[in-house]
């Protein structure tokens, strides 16, 4: 046996070099063996050879050793890491459990901050981030016309045909038109949003049906209809045998060929980019020559050459490798060519290619980002609170930390330990926060305005849980790092010599805590000012005079079906009879009807030409809202006739064609002149008859309180009969009390005809304010949350300060300071901090609220009243929350405090 004296140990700085170690070890063996052979008399080369032979395959053996070592090192590292982490976490939980009050306040604070973020993220994820159920949705675009006045407007059939034939950067173009149709036959008649689309529509989207087979490019039967999942569920009880069945639409029979899947959320496509009248529930094939149907016209016209009726939207799929810019460039080039070719109609019309995602979600992005910004502020305030609490706790634990450092724990180890504590807090807060988020999310969905695609599908699902944990860990590190750094920095000797958990916090920690409170007040101010501005603009929206007498106004829909729906004369007779009967009901003051009710009903628009004026360029044609009403409608709505006369029963279909206009149109068309007796023509068709203006009515805000009155044209229903009318009834008392009597009158005229869509105009108005209400309510909730958290922060800090300064206060009282002096001493600190916070917050808010200007109505982003009120509120809250600890300070008994 060799004498192996234990060699001098080698110092290692970093991880072992496995390859070198193994090579050295094996080489040593072979060399030793060779030396032995040489000693026995072999010559050196033969000895080396023999030693190698005796050893065996060196390379294989070295590889095996390396493999074993590397595996062992990995394993050891893993075990070490988990061991440390487990130890840190166990210690963290134990030490948090020891200080219950601290942990509870920190947990609730963090739960609110993290929960608010989780709730908003779940909505953002569901609406914006989740992939669309379409094949490569990023390759889908909408094509619009553009004019100087309207950056996006609908296409005419002629232009749709041109784009379809001339654009090479897209593989296919499908036209879309929006219609309202009457569904009758099974159950109550219902008016539905529908779409007539080119037969290649479903091919362009590349979406698979749930049942059956929709129409395809070039192959569609005029009688086919495709149902949405929602309609199939609601009207046909999700009957899987629906394909092939006949249903009645607008009085004629159609065959169901397919049902679309539940996640096919296809909205109505509007040039303004916000869904304002709901998603289509059924799809109809195009009229002749692949041109989607016009909302009001006969299906059998050849519209290919029509360059005046702009009612079409177009969706297209970009060819592989084509960029959006290239497509945009080509569309513009085609538009320039068309402007040249069809100077009379297409001059001044440009083209816009818009990504599908922007069209669908562009309008929700901004409000959602306002909410994201709000919850980030809330989280920042919560973090500041938690950090401030930790700082207070850390200074109380200086002795414990000093001992750990003295016993040889490295600073990194202590920081890691403290971070483990804050992370445990944050994760606990996140778990609690998810409960809050679950509640908050359902409130958000319930409050949200209609027309936000996919909102209802928001869940606390895996991505949301992942996001929440990530936020929690990040939060834990963020609010833990500064306190941990400061706590571990203290001079060991001094802290131990201090001898007390009650030692002063050190100027650095208190300054940091002061800074955190200033930050909280600053953030709370920004949030509250934002919420205040949105609340004020909601209030001014609610106060806007729409021009309609909203109180005691009932509205409901009548949808005619059967033979009556197909004859204009029969429609008129029915409406007149019904209006007469309703007006005779006791409690009813007036009644009228319109195809398009203001604020939330359908909206038609038209271009018009004024007789005797030079013909304007197509892009500069005047446009107006276009309404069809019955005699008595204006009086019922509370609108006044300012010139000329109202429609009467004498204005029959056979009488000369007449029209009424509102004040805005009268001012634009005949400035300073009497419009009564003048003539205008509706639409671009030069062969349409001139219509005589018989009267002028007061302006109303047809599109809702936020949109200023625009020019309006009114036709009488006898001259433009429609199988659908929305009735309005002015009542003396509660509008709903007359519903029974009205239903009775309808049944007397037609026992099978239901009243649908019953609501009051006030409810309509309230629905139209859903978006500003939603945004202002949510930001106000977050602002309130921020205020509460900031108050907790101030209270905590002042309370802590009082505890810290007990001796000082006791000395002052002993030396004759009055209670008022002590009160002043404590409160002045709160005042100074709040003042600085309010000042900084005001500066920040002044720039940030500019971003809100698109949401504001009747109030400027820098509204001094809002700023002043919020600033005052915060200062009052700061003083009040400091009052309790301040009063406690006045009760400090100097004899007791100084003796201890």
């Amino acid at each position, binding site marked *: *046996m060799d004498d192996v004296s234990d060699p001098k140990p080698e110092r290692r700085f970093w991880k072992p070099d496995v390859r070198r170690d193994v090579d050295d070890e094996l080489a*040593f063996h072979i060399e030793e063996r060779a030396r032995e052979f040489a000693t026995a008399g072999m010559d050196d080369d033969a000895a080396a050879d023999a030693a190698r032979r005796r050893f065996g395959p060196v390379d294989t053996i070295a590889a095996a050793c390396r493999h074993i070592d590397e595996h062992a090192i990995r394993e050891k590292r893993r075990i070490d890491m988990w061991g440390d982490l487990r130890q840190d976490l166990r210690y963290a939980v134990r030490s948090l459990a020891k200080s219950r009050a601290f942990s509870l306040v920190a947990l609730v604070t963090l739960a609110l901050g993290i929960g608010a973020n989780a709730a908003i993220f779940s909505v953002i994820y569901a609406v914006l981030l989740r992939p669309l159920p379409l094949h490569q949705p990023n390759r889908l675009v909408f094509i619009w016309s553009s004019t100087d006045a309207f950056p996006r407007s609908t296409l005419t059939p002629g232009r749709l045909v041109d784009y379809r034939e001339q654009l090479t950067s897209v593989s296919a173009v499908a036209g879309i038109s929006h219609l309202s149709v009457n569904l009758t036959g099974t159950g109550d008649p219902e008016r539905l949003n529908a779409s007539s689309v080119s037969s290649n529509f479903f091919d362009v989207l590349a979406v698979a049906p749930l049942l059956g087979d929709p129409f395809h490019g070039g192959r569609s039967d005029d009688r086919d209809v495709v149902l949405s999942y929602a309609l199939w569920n609601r009207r046909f009880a999700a009957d899987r045998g629906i394909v092939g069945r006949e249903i009645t639409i607008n009085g004629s029979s159609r065959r169901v060929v397919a049902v679309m899947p539940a996640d096919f959320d296809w909205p109505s496509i509007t040039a303004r980019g916000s869904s304002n009248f709901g998603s289509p529930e059924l799809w109809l094939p195009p009229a002749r020559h692949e041109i989607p149907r016009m909302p009001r016209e006969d299906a059998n016209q050849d519209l290919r050459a029509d360059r005046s009726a702009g009612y079409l939207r177009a969706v297209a799929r970009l060819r592989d490798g084509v960029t959006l810019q290239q497509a945009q460039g080509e569309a513009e080039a085609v538009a320039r060519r068309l402007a040249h070719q069809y100077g009379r109609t297409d001059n001044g019309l440009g083209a816009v290619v818009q990504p599908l995602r922007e069209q669908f979600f562009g309008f929700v992005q901004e409000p959602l980002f306002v909410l994201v910004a709000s919850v980030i502020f809330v989280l920042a305030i919560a973090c500041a609170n938690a950090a401030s609490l930790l700082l207070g706790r850390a200074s109380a634990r200086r002795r414990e930390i000093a001992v750990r450092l003295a016993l040889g724990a490295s600073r990194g180890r202590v920081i890691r330990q403290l971070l483990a504590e804050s992370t445990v807090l944050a994760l606990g807060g996140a778990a609690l926060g998810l409960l809050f988020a679950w509640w908050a999310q359902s409130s958000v969905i319930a409050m949200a305005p209609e027309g936000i695609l996919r909102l209802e599908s928001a869940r606390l699902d895996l991505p949301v849980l992942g996001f929440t944990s990530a936020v929690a860990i990040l939060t834990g590190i963020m609010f833990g790092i500064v306190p941990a750094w400061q706590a571990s920095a203290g001079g060991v000797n001094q802290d131990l010599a201090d001898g007390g958990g009650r030692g002063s916090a050190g100027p650095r920690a208190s300054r940091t805590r002061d800074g955190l409170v200033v930050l909280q007040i600053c953030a709370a101010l920004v949030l509250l000012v934002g919420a205040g501005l949105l609340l004020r603009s909601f209030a001014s929206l609610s106060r806007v005079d729409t021009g309609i007498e909203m109180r005691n106004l009932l509205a409901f829909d009548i949808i005619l079906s059967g033979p009556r729906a197909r004859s204009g004369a029969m429609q008129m007779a029915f409406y007149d009879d019904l209006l007469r009967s309703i007006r005779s009901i006791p409690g009813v003051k007036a009644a009228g009807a319109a195809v398009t009710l203001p604020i939330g009903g359908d909206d038609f628009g038209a271009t018009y030409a004024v007789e005797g004026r030079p013909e304007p360029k197509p892009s500069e044609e005047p446009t107006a809202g276009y309404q069809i009403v019955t005699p008595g409608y204006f009086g019922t709505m509370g609108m006044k006739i300012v010139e000329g006369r109202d429609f009467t029963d004498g204005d029959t279909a056979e009488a000369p064609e007449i029209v009424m206009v509102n004040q805005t149109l009268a001012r634009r068309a005949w400035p300073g002149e009497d419009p009564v007796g003048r003539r205008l023509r509706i639409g671009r068709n030069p062969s349409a008859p001139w219509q005589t203006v018989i009267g002028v009515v007061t302006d109303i805000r047809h599109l809702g309180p936020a949109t200023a009155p625009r020019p309006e044209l009114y036709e009488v229903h006898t001259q433009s009969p429609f199988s659908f009318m929305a009735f309005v009834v002015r009542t003396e008392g509660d509008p709903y009390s007359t519903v029974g009597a009205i239903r009775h009158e309808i049944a007397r005229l037609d026992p099978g005809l239901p009243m649908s869509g019953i609501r009051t105009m006030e409810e309509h108005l309230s629905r139209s304010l859903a978006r500003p209400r939603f945004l202002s309510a949510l930001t106000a909730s977050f602002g309130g949350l921020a205020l509460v958290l900031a108050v907790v922060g101030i209270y905590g800090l002042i309370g802590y300060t009082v505890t810290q300064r007990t001796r000082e206060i006791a000395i002052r009282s002993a030396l004759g300071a009055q209670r008022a002096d002590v009160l002043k001493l404590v409160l002045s600190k709160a005042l100074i901090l709040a003042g600085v916070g309010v000042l900084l917050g005001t500066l920040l808010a002044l720039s940030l609220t500019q971003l809100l200007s698109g949401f504001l109505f009747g109030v400027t982003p820098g509204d001094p009243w809002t700023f002043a009120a919020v600033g005052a509120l915060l200062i009052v809250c700061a003083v009040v929350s400091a009052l309790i600890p301040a009063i406690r300070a006045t009760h400090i008994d100097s004899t007791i405090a100084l003796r201890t």
Partner: protein
Amino acid sequence: MPERTTIDLLQGTLGVLILKSLSWGPMHGYGIARWIEQIAAQDLLIEEGSLYPALHRLEARGLVTSHWGVSETNRRVKTYRLTEQGRQQLRAETHSWDRFSAAVSRVLQARRAGG
């Protein structure tokens, strides 16, 4: 589980020999090879290289530890030492081996039953 131990022992024979060699004190790989060679002489011929994977495996299992030092000839030397766990393992395996070899010799020396 006696059978299990026996099989382990057969496959890990080299391991037991290494543990036994280290039970006298710390040694480097070459020293272990020399020890086995001297004690067992020609009865147990091993390919020397196969010693090393066995050693590294024992180290990974925590039965031996090693450290690097510098020899008198100024070369890096890796020295192995038995751990407490390794000592226990050696005792257990020695015991199993005794039982196993006793059983095998009983079988081999048995006469035909009833004959």
